[in-house]
């Protein structure tokens, strides 16, 4: 039964993956009409009348296209999830680090260097091994664990040869000697709905790189850190990545604005339905049954 208060909804995507299909099915089950917008057809004239939606679920896979679509629809008065502000912050690792640091959220020491020479000096200051990451990009691509100065110099030479000005900037992070796993918490509308471990043979634990996923208890510490990280980066729908350091403490690595949840869904089977919760919290705006007690239950 469609709610009388259901917003006129659209889902923006250029690829219908597991996540988009589940969202469209969840909307269908609620009887909420949803316009599927293929990003490849999007064009907007300055003097156009506003589009006929109240809410756009922004599932575009390209961070650049997602950002500009969000800016465009927001300028026309449409609520976009995630917003342009969230994409700008979460889509750039340095901006994320600055937001986490400003909020006092534990995150590994990191540095931005604007030239290769400055990057070599920053790496010496951080101490090897260091992790070199592209500012923009995901799925663990081009993320490199650098053992020493010679290796860093070699990798930076490749970065210098890339055409994008952004690729020439070096984001360096202290390597966290973590277990062979990290933790992903999904936050929907400010509420952490559950956590999973991502376990891998390698040091990169992205699901896109073949990591396996298992349910992780959503402790109070995890829930609090993830909710704060999502809030401070402006993400209404967030995948917050954390690592456990050698002392058992938690550090937030990054916040994903275009969160994929296939691995999370597999880890939690039918105990947590991510698409249903997204529709309930972000489309219908309902917060019933999503109090702290429920969060504790679904994460256990």
């Amino acid at each position, binding site marked *: 039964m469609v709610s009388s208060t259901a917003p006129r909804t659209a889902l923006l*995507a*250029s*690829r*219908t*993956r597991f996540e988009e*299909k589940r969202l*469209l099915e969840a909307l269908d089950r609620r009887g909420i009409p949803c316009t*599927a917008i*293929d990003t490849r057809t999007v064009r907007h004239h300055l003097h156009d009348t506003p589009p006929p939606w109240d809410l756009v679920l922004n599932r575009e*896979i*390209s*961070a*650049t296209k997602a950002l500009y679509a969000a800016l465009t629809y927001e300028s026309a008065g449409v609520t976009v999830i995630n917003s342009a502000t969230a994409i700008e912050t979460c*889509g750039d690792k340095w901006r994320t680090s600055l937001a986490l640091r400003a909020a006092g959220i534990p995150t590994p020491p990191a540095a931005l260097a604007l030239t290769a020479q400055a990057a070599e000096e920053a790496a010496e200051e951080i101490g090897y091994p260091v992790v070199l990451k*592209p500012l*923009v*990009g*995901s*799925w663990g*691509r081009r993320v490199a664990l650098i053992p020493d100065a010679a290796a860093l110099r070699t990798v930076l030479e490749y970065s210098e040869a890339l055409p*994008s000005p952004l690729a020439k900037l070096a984001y360096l992070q202290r390597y966290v000697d973590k277990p062979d796993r990290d933790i992903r918490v999904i936050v929907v509308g400010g509420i952490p709905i559950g956590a999973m471990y991502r376990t891998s043979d390698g040091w990169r634990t992205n699901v*896109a790189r073949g990591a396996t996923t298992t349910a992780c208890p959503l402790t109070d510490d995890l829930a609090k850190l993830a909710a704060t990280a999502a809030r401070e980066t402006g993400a209404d729908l967030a*995948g917050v990545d954390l690592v456990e350091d050698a002392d058992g403490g938690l550090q937030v690595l990054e916040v*994903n604005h*275009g*969160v*994929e949840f296939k691995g999370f869904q597999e880890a939690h089977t039918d105990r947590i339905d991510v698409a249903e919760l997204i529709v309930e919290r972000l489309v219908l705006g309902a917060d019933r049954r999503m109090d702290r007690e429920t969060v504790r239950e679904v994460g256990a």
Partner: protein
Amino acid sequence: MTTATQTCPECDGPVDVGDTVRASEVIECPECRSELEVVATEPLLLALAPEVEEDWGE
């Protein structure tokens, strides 16, 4: 909607697209592992999905 088994545009292998397929859906060829995109549903048409770009990701 056409739901019969389709042919992979990369390897000519059979691809079962199921009966809930949607436009722009990405499916994997079970034989050659190519990512395929549903570019039309009436009639159903498969094409190789675009290559991953630098700023793609979750």
